[in-house]
């Protein structure tokens, strides 16, 4: 009988081609997703005259630069148009399947991968994007890589890595209605800090994690990187298998059943050791919003922002002063007194169908007091939302119903929050200037963004859900 193992170790061992004496391992990559930003890596290949080793395991997506408002093909900015063209040219040149701008399956890589069944339990997945951690929600070992590593994977289908430390975050208990995967991950980041999981792979476990849908788990794992963890995962279970069954690129029929047998062995064994353990009680988690410029600056909605005058640590007081100044918030303000200028519902964090439903449940029959954009995570999610009539709810509330892409999360397609504007956003990063120079971002769940929209200020969604089906 072998020693009990964590899911992290099982996945690692299954992909280890060789381990050098110095501790670095060469790992096999099962899926490599590329996008417009991968042009730097393709240029490195071109410079070396190199080819793509495994084009059948490589998939291209157009997401970071695609327009999400107005006409899709008529990209006015020639530099942005060039970015979309480069991913088309590079994938065509190397025989890589592309989910391109005109493809009905187009969308954000971290939405499309799971949706198409490209992402499966037990796979090792990389992409030149830090939110690749998302795919761990299905029980994959998935992490973001830099351009040199993208080039290496393109050329060899392998990557050198050092085995990370293992951290388990256990969330037990039943979360209150209106509490989502986003609130749970923000609570975790607030607890352990933005560098709390640096050097670690994360496993999320516990009854509250099991109770999350696959969409909720994707949100959770998506923001592992915001806690410093390069990858985060949830062991696959019946919910995972039900989600994947029949997806286009997943195994079909008997092959699927055989795969489920294998995937069922991936869960962490009883008694397996972790390097660090953190636990939270889901019952104690309230809807959470960020007030500052790091995701760790997160508080329950019924609290007030810190007051630097009451902070004893001088460095911390300086941070608070500078951050509140950037955010344009008076020290000690109640969070619910902070007025917002706009809302954004979208991104790889929170633009799946369940996210849109949660926002629509709050917005139905109500008007948004501020402008806002809703951008579905994929074109298929957009279609489904339209079939369910969600687009009408958003439009009737006064919000713009856009196309799918990374959009206003990172703003590189031109959809920006104006300098000084305050945006309630379902995205993952509240960094200074993230949504545009001078933009002020508050991170929260889709339901909480909807609550901010109908209130005109940061607001607790729970009273707005009374008598509604959620």
């Amino acid at each position: 009988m072998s020693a009990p193992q964590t899911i992290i170790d099982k996945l690692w061992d299954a992909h280890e081609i060789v381990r050098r004496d110095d501790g670095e391992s060469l790992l096999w990559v099962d899926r490599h997703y590329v996008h417009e930003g991968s042009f730097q890596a393709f240029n490195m290949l071109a410079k070396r005259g190199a080819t793509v080793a495994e084009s059948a395991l490589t998939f291209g997506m157009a997401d970071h630069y695609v327009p999400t408002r107005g006409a899709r093909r008529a990209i006015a900015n020639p530099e942005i148009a060039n970015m979309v063209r480069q991913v088309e040219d590079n994938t065509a040149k190397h025989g890589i399947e592309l989910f391109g701008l005109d493809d009905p399956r187009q969308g954000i890589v971290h939405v499309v991968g799971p949706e198409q069944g490209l992402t499966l339990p037990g796979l090792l997945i990389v992409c030149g994007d830090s939110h690749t951690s998302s795919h761990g929600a299905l029980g994959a070992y998935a992490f973001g890589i830099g351009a040199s590593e993208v080039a290496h994977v393109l050329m060899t289908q392998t990557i050198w890595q050092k085995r990370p430390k293992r951290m388990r975050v256990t969330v037990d208990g039943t979360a209150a209605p209106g509490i989502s995967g986003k609130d749970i991950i923000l609570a975790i980041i607030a607890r352990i800090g933005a560098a709390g999981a640096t050097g670690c792979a994360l496993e999320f476990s516990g009854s509250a994690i099991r109770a999350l849908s696959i969409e909720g788990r994707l949100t959770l794992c998506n923001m592992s990187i915001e806690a410093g963890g390069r990858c985060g995962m949830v062991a696959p279970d019946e919910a995972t298998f039900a989600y994947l069954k029949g997806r286009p690129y997943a195994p079909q029929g008997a092959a699927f059943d055989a795969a489920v047998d294998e995937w069922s062995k991936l869960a962490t064994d009883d008694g397996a050791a972790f390097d660090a353990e953190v636990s939270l009680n889901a019952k104690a988690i309230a809807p959470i919003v960020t007030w500052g410029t790091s995701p760790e600056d997160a508080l329950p909605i019924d609290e007030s922002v810190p007051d630097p005058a009451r902070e004893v640590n001088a460095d911390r007081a300086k941070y608070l002063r500078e951050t509140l100044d950037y955010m344009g918030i008076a020290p000690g303000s109640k969070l619910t007194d902070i007025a917002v200028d706009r809302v954004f519902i979208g991104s790889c964090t929170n633009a799946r169908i369940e996210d849109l439903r949660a926002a629509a449940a709050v917005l139905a029959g109500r008007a948004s007091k501020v402008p806002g954009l809703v951008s579905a995570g994929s074109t298929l999610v957009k279609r489904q939302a339209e079939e369910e009539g969600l687009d009408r709810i958003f439009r009737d509330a006064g919000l713009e119903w856009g196309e799918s892409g990374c959009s206003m999360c990172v703003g590189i397609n031109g959809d920006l929050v104006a300098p000084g504007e305050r945006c309630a956003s379902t995205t993952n990063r509240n960094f200074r200037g993230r949504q545009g120079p001078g933009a002020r971002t508050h991170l929260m769940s889709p339901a909480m963004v909807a609550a901010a929209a109908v209130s005109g200020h940061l607001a607790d969604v729970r009273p707005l859900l009374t008598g509604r089906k959620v």
Partner: protein
Amino acid sequence: MDKVTTITGAACPIDQSNVNTDQILPARYLKWTRTMGIGKVLFNDLRFDAEGREKPDFPLNKPAWRDAKIVVAARNFGCGSSRESAVYALYDYGIRCVIAPSFGDIFSGNAVQNGLLTAIVSDDEAAEILATLQRTPELPLTVDLAQQTIVCGNRTYNFTIDPVRRTRLLNGWDDIALIESYRDRIAAFKEKDQAERRWAVPPAR
């Protein structure tokens, strides 16, 4: 890639934790190739105002630190996005070493691929070095990778770095240079693995 041995030069103190890659290189410059002068837009929105004028308070704009070869910061430098261009911007500006108590995992991986040294010291040591540089801006630091030391005036600090990364920096190796000798083992792994984990192979188009 150039070998890294010792680095001596001005050291710019950036007394902030969680300096993220969006700050190091704002996303709108991700369209740039490296040949476009990406070092010019390092820390762009911290260094310049909306009209492109220098912000005099940002340390890199101060005369003593304008030509810095070293950056010293608080914990979790380079957190956030995987953009390797953040490393290009630092390197092409002239920075060869960043000293901090911790780094974003993806950032430090990208750094080693490009010959940028990430030297880890404790929180207290980082605070001490930052304070020394504020007092004596002209004081050059010497970072010795072989010895793993930072000489700062009359103090010498030891720093840590993953030994694999240290070896690679000392030798100027990058991943692609290292891989050729493993081609056969990769092919053997693939053959065995694809027979065992048939479900892991996507359906043929």
